[in-house]
């Protein structure tokens, strides 16, 4: 039942917000529609895009933020305030399309209030038709892959985590926490699975010289 409610709420949020008749919300005041298709997306560019969301707050079913390094609606949960929720942040960062199962890439202005149709449940459970897939092992995760459980999802910020085995996770974490990079233990937590967007463009494009993933420089 909870899963159904989440899906219903997120489906509604996937529609661009329409100004209401009551007091204007932060989203009403700040956000607008601005999106277009793009041909490709590198992990490095996805991470660069997501940087704009850091320190910008959290909003359940949200997906609109400015870039002033502060949460403009702190302590105002479910108010059409600033910030994405966890799955909406992944949706925009991964440049996913707004219709379930559609391939390709779509860029959204950070100030477009769009969440997308995917919840943490769909990211976790996966489906062959989705534009992302579950990793066989979390140890294979590369940066900008995600770790998802029922209820939350965050992205691996870098492959070089701290020496204690934890990871730097880029995530819309919680109402009181906002959005940012946190040290987390999702890799070792059995509730989480690894999730990879399909069709990443290699970071080396268009100068890739082979399948080698490692560049070793000796001193």
């Amino acid at each position, binding site marked *: 039942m909870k899963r159904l409610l989440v899906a219903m709420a997120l489906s509604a949020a996937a529609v661009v917000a329409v100004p209401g008749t009551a007091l204007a919300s932060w989203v009403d005041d700040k956000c607008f529609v601005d999106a277009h298709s793009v041909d490709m997306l590198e992990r490095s560019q996805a991470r660069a895009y997501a940087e704009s969301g850091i320190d910008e707050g959290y909003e359940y079913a949200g997906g609109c933020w400015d870039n002033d390094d502060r949460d403009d609606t702190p302590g105002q949960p479910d108010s059409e305030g600033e910030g994405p929720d966890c799955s909406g942040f992944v949706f925009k960062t991964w440049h996913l399309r707004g219709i379930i199962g559609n391939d390709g890439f779509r860029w959204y202005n950070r100030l477009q209030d769009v969440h997308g149709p995917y919840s943490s449940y769909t990211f976790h459970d996966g489906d062959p038709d989705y534009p992302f897939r579950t990793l066989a092992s*979390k140890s294979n995760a590369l940066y900008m892959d995600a770790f998802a459980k029922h209820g939350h999802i965050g992205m691996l910020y870098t492959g070089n985590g701290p*020496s204690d*085995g934890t990871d730097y996770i880029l995530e819309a974490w*919680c109402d009181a*926490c906002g959005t940012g990079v946190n040290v987390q233990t999702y890799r*070792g937590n059995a509730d989480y699975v690894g999730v990879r967007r399909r069709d990443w463009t290699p970071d080396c494009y268009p100068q890739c010289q082979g399948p080698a993933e*490692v560049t070793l420089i000796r001193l």
Partner: protein
Amino acid sequence: MGGRRRAVVGMAGALLVVAVAAGSGPGLAAARVRAGARAAAGVRGALAATTLQIFHGSPLLVRAGEPVIVPVDVVCVTASGMACPATVSIRAGAGLARRAEGPIRQGLRFDLTGLVAGKPGAGEGAGPAGPVAGSVPFAIAARDPAGRTVTLPAVGALRVYVAAAMRAVAVPAVPFGRLRDGTTVLALPWGRGAAAAGLDRGPEQATVGPPAFDVDADGRVYLLDALQGRLAVFGGGRLVRQTALDVAPRSDLSVAPDGTAWVLTRAVASGLVRLVRVDPAGRPGEEVAAGDGPLGQVRAVGGRAYARLLPMDAWVAAGPGVAAAAEPSVGRPLGDGTALLRVAGERTVRLGIARGERVEDAVELRFASPVGEVALAEPDGRGGYVMVARVYREGANAADQFQVVLVSASGAVRTFAVSSAAYAEPAPSGRFRLGPDGALYRMTSSPEGVRIVRHDLGGTR
């Protein structure tokens, strides 16, 4: 990360200096450049980075004869939200005299194996010429296309230790689900008020409660109740006192033997990490800034605190009387001039004691399952260690648990497992503490509330 105006952040407690340097050259010491720094430095050009941050993956402790490989990643982002092509250089070896450079790319690694300097050892993997042991200092710099440079660390060097000898110890597997319960010493329901613990939960977000706790010599529990803005002290399950503190949901806590509490947290307004001291009477005192990276750890040792700063992944001293620009230590200082080294591998945990440039009591614990994190590691004072690692299993029967390991100087192992279930996720560094009484304390939670559980380890500390 658009408009923060921050050019130079100096820290009174000598934790870290963040600065920016325009133009080419070695650059000023810096861990990160963000948008405000760009404006203040007057850098122009579309490719000037507004975020320039180095992440490295130090092997930290290697066995003599093994390669010394340091992977490096750089986050380089322009004001328009585009990834920018940074260049990475590393200086390493004696006097940091050797240097290499390359463009940042996925999978970039520097090989420092040829720079190991030290005395011949007798480690596993000795070649015909015999291995050497010691340490390899290194420092990393990243340069954006506009020529601005950041360095890691800001002062001094990081270090990889090479152990002449490292005992390999197989840790017996504990079947998943065979858990030891422990004794509850504090239980609080979720809610508001002195006898409850704050909780933030909702759909499509993490469930977050108290990030950290500690235990003092009298057995009192210090709970960092971030969502109620307080440091609460409980004795015998009852509230003894509380101190109002503006602490972020991700924070860390350590209590010194005299009752002084140190809190590492993030300022809500500025986003900067800061270290707050609360005296034994519960009065909040001075604060020092601690950079703007992800939140790390704090530990009280002797009369001072040491903070593990990220992404430097090294410890620096903080508090009254600490000189500015202190050199970082990749090991956690133990108060006697030595430092604890610990590093997690895919199925291993390595531990050792750094004394100067040498390593003592190095051990490699080998697990049957993948290791997700090292949640606690402490020397036992007799050449052995107490450590807690999360081990996990993937697939249809996915499971995880914390495995407590006591390894003696001779390599004898005792081990048992405790639950990793948590309704509200604490900070990774805030879940376990080794109490002054020698017992292991663990924070756990359920839909009903949070509990602190004591596990007797059968010894004294």
